[in-house]
Every structure is written in C-alpha cells, then in structure tokens.
C-alpha cells in the first residue's frame, strides 16, 4: 500500500476546561488529523456570572465593583471604561486631578496586565523563569494600587465622576521610583525571553493573523497592532486626556517571522509597556491640585437615551453599550469585551498547526475568561 492512501481517522480531542494553558475555564474541542489541527471549537460560558442581568437590577454606581470582575487582571481599566461611558451619557466633566490620576492608574494597570500575559506566555511555551520575574515586578504595581485604594486585585477605585480616594502622599515618589526600577527590567525580559532562540522557534510564523481577517473579526488591541495596523483608541478615538501625552504605537513588523505571528503579538506587548512607562512619567509630574470627589454626583440618573463608548484596555477595545430609560438603573448594559472578540478568531488562525502550537497561539491572544464569559 502506498503511503499516500494511508489516512488516519479524524480524532476529536477535548482540551480543558481545567487545563493550565487555557488560562482559565475554557474548553476547546479539537478536531485533529494526526497531530494537525483541522478545527478548533471553543466552548465558553463556564465563568458566566450574569453581569448584564445584574447590572439591570442595580444603580449605576453599584455596577462599578462588578466591572472589576470582568477582566480581573485589568480592573482599573474596566472601571475607567465604565465611568467614562456613564459620564458621557450624563455630560459630566471631571476635575483635572482626577483625569491625571486615572491615566496613571490605567497605564500602570496596562503594564501589570501585560506582565501577566508575557509571564504566563513563557510558562505555556516552557520557560518558567520569566514568569517569576514578571510577577515580581507586577507585585510592585499591585502595592502601589493597594496603597491607593486598599485592594490588590479588584479596586472599585474609579467612580462615576471621580475616584473613591485621593492618592497617598507617598504615591508620586514611589511611582517615580517604580518607573526608574522597571525600565531596565524590560531589557532584562528581552534578554531572557523575547530574543531567546527556543522561544522564537516556538512562536515565530505560528498563528499568523492577516490584517484583513483581523479587522473582519473585530480583533482589537495588541493583537490588531501585531497584524500591522497602527490603531490605538488612545490616539484614534481619544478619551480622557491622552491627547496631551507623547507616546508611540508599536506595531508588529514581522521581525522574526511574518507580520501578525505569535511572536509579534508577544513583542508588541513588551514595547507597549515601555510606552506606558513614558505616559506615567509625563503624567506623574503634572498632577494638579484638586478635590477628587468634587464631580461625583449624589444621584446618578442619566437622561433617557443610549450610548456606545469604548476605551483601549490592555487587551483591546472595551465597549459599554448602555441604554438608559431615565431611571437610576440601567435599562440595558452590554459589554463588548476585547477577550470575547479576540478569542473568536482562534479557529481561523490555528488551522493546520500542531497541537503544541495551539498552546502558543492561545497564549498569544491573551484572553481573560472572566471577560469572555462576563
């Protein structure tokens, strides 16, 4: 018998929901031919906590802690996205001091979120050491947050119209120290992981996401930028006071393989951390005096109407679609989570790869299941 006619039967393999490399409770149904992937069918919903249903039963300020629990690695950014959506609906203008503190928090959060993404990505591929380095540095950011609002993971810090607390008197000094401390660590991470031969072999040319596919699938954030589009809502659809800062938008260049491969997605995040540091550095010196509670409304009661408002989260475009019927509860609140949309492209980019590569691809999409399932 000729080898050509030898064909293995299609094999269905189940991966997850309890699998360390699915980054949470995600189940993937793999359709395999030998070791090659024919189809990936993600099954989600294991972490569905009915955010949208809960939101309808609560007042607007009560929703803030629930937004923490969506992308729990970037709670500050979620708070910010929600607060901005409601403020736009109500036409609230927040004090300058609040704007600056918000930007600093959101950018520190972006670094923290990317550190988790990069560290765990290393673990997925088989490099354990960078993970420890990343978490050591993330710990410092969490300490800054803890000192600001008392919480290390779920902050409930950015409120509609303001903040829950003003910053600690030592915050500015310690943040400056952190920026000084962290900048060389990015170089260290590059030496340790980014330009490691084995790491490049595992990630370059794997899971290539062409730009038109990315746009058609609604992919946003570092994943879209890795595919070569200079697209960042902080610049392209500015909110808060991002137009005052000088920073670049890193894009994937196919340095180690093809534009839009897993290595590009990884490296865009590394470069973004540096840009976030630049923003923090500029903002920290300019924080004006003011009262952070000044614009917090006693009663949040937006006028009748609806709004779709989006911000650039560490993982991509976080959109809130809110319909208000003029009462103190939202009539409808839909969240367009970046992880939810970014995960939907998985099948498209993993076809024809090996099972082991699927781990590399999934890791490079950087999803948080809390946001996928909400």
């Amino acid at each position, binding site marked *: 018998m000729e080898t050509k006619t030898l064909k293995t039967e299609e094999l269905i393999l189940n991966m997850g929901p309890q699998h360390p490399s699915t980054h949470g409770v995600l189940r993937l149904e793999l359709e395999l031919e030998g070791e090659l992937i024919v189809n990936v069918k993600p099954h*989600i*919903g294991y972490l*569905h906590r*009915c955010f*949208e*249903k809960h939101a309808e039963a609560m007042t607007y300020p009560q929703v803030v802690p629930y937004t923490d629990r969506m992308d729990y690695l970037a709670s500050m950014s979620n708070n910010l996205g929600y607060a901005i959506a409601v403020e736009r*609906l109500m*036409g609230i203008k927040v004090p300058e001091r609040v704007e600056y503190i918000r930007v600093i928090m959101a950018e520190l959060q972006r670094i923290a979120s990317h550190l988790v993404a990069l560290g765990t990505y290393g673990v997925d591929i088989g490099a354990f050491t960078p993970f420890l380095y990343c978490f050591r540095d993330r710990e410092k950011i969490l300490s800054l947050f803890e000192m600001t609002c008392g919480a290390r993971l779920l902050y409930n810090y950015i409120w509609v119209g303001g903040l829950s607390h003003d910053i600690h008197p030592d915050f500015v000094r310690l943040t400056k120290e952190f920026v000084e401390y962290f900048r060389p660590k990015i170089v260290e991470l590059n030496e340790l992981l980014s330009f490691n031969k084995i790491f490049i072999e595992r990630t370059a040319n794997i899971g290539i996401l062409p730009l038109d*596919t990315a*746009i*058609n*699938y*609604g*992919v946003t954030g570092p994943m879209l930028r890795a595919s070569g*589009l200079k*697209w960042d809502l902080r610049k*392209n659809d500015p909110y808060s006071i991002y137009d005052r800062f000088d920073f670049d938008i890193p894009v994937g260049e196919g340095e180690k393989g093809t534009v839009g491969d897993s290595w590009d997605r990884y490296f865009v995040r590394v470069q973004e951390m540096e840009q976030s540091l630049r923003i923090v550095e500029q903002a920290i010196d300019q924080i004006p005096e003011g009262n952070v509670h000044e614009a917090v409304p006693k009663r949040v009661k937006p*006028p*009748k*109407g*609806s*709004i*779709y408002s*989006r911000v650039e989260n560490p993982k991509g*475009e976080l*959109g809130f*679609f809110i*319909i208000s019927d003029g009462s103190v509860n939202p009539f*409808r609140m*839909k969240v*367009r989570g970046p992880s*939810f*949309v970014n995960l*939907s492209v998985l099948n*498209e980019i993993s076809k024809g790869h090996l099972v082991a590569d699927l781990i590399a691809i999934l890791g490079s999409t950087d999803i948080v299941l809390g946001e996928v*399932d*909400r």
Partner: protein
Amino acid sequence: MMKPEEIFELLKQKFDDKIIGFENELPVDSYIVVNPLAIKEVSKFLRDNEQLKFDSLMCLSGVDDANEKKTKDEEGNEVIEKGTLSVYYHLHSIELGHKVNLKVSVSVDNPNVESVESIWRTADWHEREAYDMFGIVFLNHPDLRRILMPEDWEAGHPLRKDYKNPEFYNGMRVPY
C-alpha cells in the same frame, strides 16, 4: 467622513422602503432603523461602498424593548400588543474614521433577523449571544447555538425582562 444623517439619506435613496427611519434624540447616539430582513444587503452595501467602507463592526447587541401594551377594546376585552426585541449594530470605518449605528426591531412572536455573519465574521459570536440571551433568531447563521448558557438550558432566554429563574436545572436547585 460622513455624518449619520448623510449616510441615512444615501441609504434611503438606495434602498427606499427597506430603511424605516432615523432616530436621533440628543444627547444620545442616533440610529438608522432598518428592515430586519434587509439588514444583510444594507450591511453589505455599507461595507463595500467606496464612500462608506464600514469595515469594522464594533458591537452587536440584543435588547428587549419591554414595550408590551395592554389595552381594553370597546367590549372590555383585554388586547395585548406584543413587545419587540431589537438588535443594535455599531459600525465604524477604520479607514475613513466615521461611525454609524443601525437598529432593527422584531416582534417577540416572530424574532427573525437576517444574519450579518457573512459580512463581518465578528458577528458570529455576538449573534449567538443575542440568540442565547434574547431568543432572537438570526436567519442563515451557520452555527446558531447557545454560547454562554448551558446548551440544555430550557428555562428560556435570561436577559428578557419577563424571564423567571427556574427552580431546578438538571435536578440541581438554581436559587442558592
């Protein structure tokens, strides 16, 4: 860059009565209301037209309008006018930088909307979510299954305003 009003005029010329109206109440987003069975061809036009180029669907949301009306007719019998479900589409053109929002409304009894999955693939999961949460049926969707709720959830569609939690699911108590 085109304003939503101009896009509405353009669509009205092209599609005539398939475009139902234009909702614009400040301070809110404005919506072009489209016939639910024509949404696919309108979307295709919006995506492919040189002046429009809406290459990105930012968000697709189902909404229960909760507008069921109970009135009494001349003989005193109760007449129930069934409510509607709506789907909102938020579009954006990356190349040209303009935005537009579409809206379709369907009756609860016959919630059929044409799927736009083949225009923007991102609509795939969003439509599945709208089906799961509201029971809106997207015609010609390749894989319309529940996405967030368990596949054997029989108690209906949770985000509808008249939804009641079941007491048991597969023999397990639901309210805890």
